[in-house]
């Protein structure tokens, strides 16, 4: 029996896609069942596995993405992207298998829920979309005295880029930045330009800069509106908590 090869790739869209490219070569040599792709460092090394570190190659990543985009319904690429930014530990291997199935069966993969990887991907995408959808509503910008809007988030999934796409259209005429406190990533958007994401930025939990003079007034106006708009006779904290779980409230103006 072949020894299982565990390929270790970087935890990013490029890392995983480039890993899929390399994985394919291993798969052809050792067989589908004997190759695993992993993007998190293993906690325990298994004696019977062989671990191999992969380097991320943008070229390889682009080749895989382009091929997926060309061959399949756009939904397949979307699913892959959403899975790569998810918090799921095993996502690299799930995707590696998912993509192999896609090449076996084509677009039918979108409907084949009987395959566990397809089901997993569907569920993961839903979770990521859900969090993204929540954050694009719940995120709060603060106006700084240099007329930049600043926001902090701490999402489970790495949705910064998705949020960037949403806000660069909506707030195209604004300078804004969004900081993912947990991942130490900052998204910067300059008026009428595209955005850039910087990694490994240490900012003392986003506590820097000075608020604009009128910022406090608008925050207070919002709090007044928020408190007033509820109908007292229908108070329902449980429903409120179900719709807006506490973990989102940390940086929301009306709750702080």
């Amino acid at each position, binding site marked *: 029996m072949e020894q299982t090869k565990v390929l270790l790739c970087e935890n990013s869209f490029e890392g995983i896609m480039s890993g899929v490219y390399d994985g394919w070569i291993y798969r052809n040599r050792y067989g589908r069942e004997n190759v695993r792709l992993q993007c998190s460092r293993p906690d325990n090394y298994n004696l019977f596995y062989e671990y191999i570190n992969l380097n991320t190659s943008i070229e390889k990543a682009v080749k895989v993405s382009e091929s997926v985009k060309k061959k399949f319904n756009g939904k397949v690429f979307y699913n892959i992207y959403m899975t790569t930014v998810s918090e799921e530990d095993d996502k690299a291997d799930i995707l590696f298998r998912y993509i192999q199935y896609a090449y076996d069966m084509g677009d039918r993969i979108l409907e084949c*829920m009987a395959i566990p990887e397809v089901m997993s991907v569907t569920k993961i995408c839903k979770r990521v979309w859900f969090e993204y959808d929540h954050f694009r*509503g719940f995120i709060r910008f603060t106006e700084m005295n240099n007329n930049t809007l600043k926001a902090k988030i701490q999402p489970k999934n790495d949705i910064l880029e998705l949020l960037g796409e949403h806000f660069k259209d909506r707030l195209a005429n604004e300078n804004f930045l969004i900081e993912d406190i947990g991942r130490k990533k900052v998204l910067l958007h300059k008026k009428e330009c595209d955005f850039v994401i910087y990694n490994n930025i240490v900012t003392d939990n986003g506590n820097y800069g000075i608020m604009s003079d009128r910022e406090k007034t608008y925050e207070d106006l*919002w709090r007044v*509106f928020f408190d*007033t*708009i*509820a*109908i007292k006779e*229908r*108070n329902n904290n449980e429903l409120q908590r179900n719709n807006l779980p506490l973990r989102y409230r940390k940086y929301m103006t009306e709750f702080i």
Partner: protein
Amino acid sequence: MEIMDKLRILADAAKYDVACTSSGSSRKGKVNNHTGGIGNTVSCGICHTFSADGRCVSLLKILMTNNCVYDCKYCQNRKSNDIERAQFEPEEICRLTMEFYRRNYIEGLFLSSGIIDNPDRTMELLYRTIFLLRNIYKFNGYIHVKGIPGASEELIQMTGFMADRMSVNLELPTAEGLKLLAPNKNRKNIVTPMKQIQTGINQNRYDIKNYNNAQEFVPAGQSTQMIIGATNESDYQLVSVSEALYKNFQMKRVFYSAYVPVNEDSSLPSLDTTPPMLREHRLYQADFMMRFYGFKAKEILSEDNPNFNVFLDPKCDWALKHLERYPIEINKADYYSLLRIPGIGPVSAKRIVSARKHNVLGFDDIRKMGVVLKRAVYFITCNGKMMYYNMKMNEDYITRQLLGNNNPRRTFVEENNISYRQLSLFDDEQVLQTGS
């Protein structure tokens, strides 16, 4: 008066309006069209927060003024009430909307108003505000504005070209109710702008298809709302009214608002009446069944059975009344038959239809697709088999199972040994009182 006080008064005055959704419109940011400005809209809408009553807050929902010359009996802003009054300047509304929007507090503006002098003057002020917001402040986000009954056709038309959604409140389900409680309004004045907006939307669809630079008219469609429980219509009357509104005016949504007693009046429920929340909930369920499951109002309720079952949602109730149609075979039934199974919604029904092309589906498969088996088991077979042997297809048994464990309603049913056929004899208050 400070802007803070105005906001407090005029948000408070608007809070009973229910339609706070920002859905139905999809528009890219204007920078892509090189005109500057701020904002876009997304078709599914976005909730920005949830207030203490658990409702989604998506729009800055305010009245232009609560200084109303009308005297609708159910309304806290009515002329005869002695309350704090305020009025926004159009610029104030624009600035609030812009600043709230930039900070991502809101999707846009929901603007309504009490009647200032007369309907035309009111509509004109609403129009002027939105005109400023769109053209001077270059706001490209979501705008929902009320059509004021009795306002001129021209004003409504001009407003419609700048709003995403318009709504004219039906207020009360019947013309008699309206006469009784809103002496300054009449059914005809309400229906006229509804019809006009509908015609405008249809005409606009044609224009957009045929002319390159046609402007959009109310792209997110028209909605309306009515107050539930201030007058004594039956539930059957209510769902029939909704059905007619969807059919005759192509409403996007009909909203229901459980009456909260704010005024003392002999023609109104007393001040200690609790808002009929369960009834409102059942109405939304029935509304959903009509819009997405293909149910007709007269299937859900009827003259002989005019009120909702307080124990069971209307879909389960319908299923129990039609046990002879079940069980339904998951691998064969068409989409609409699947939708008639409790525990199956549009999403899981679609998944079933597409997945069964490839495999024969079993209970485990459909569970994974989101079917709520706890409810569905009594009504389905997979590949000819029911989930458990010897399952009783008996309405009393199924009723109790559907009510679920730890449900005070189930305890009530069991302790009093109530059969399915007797359920409709009880209303919610009786059940809750005995239960507690």
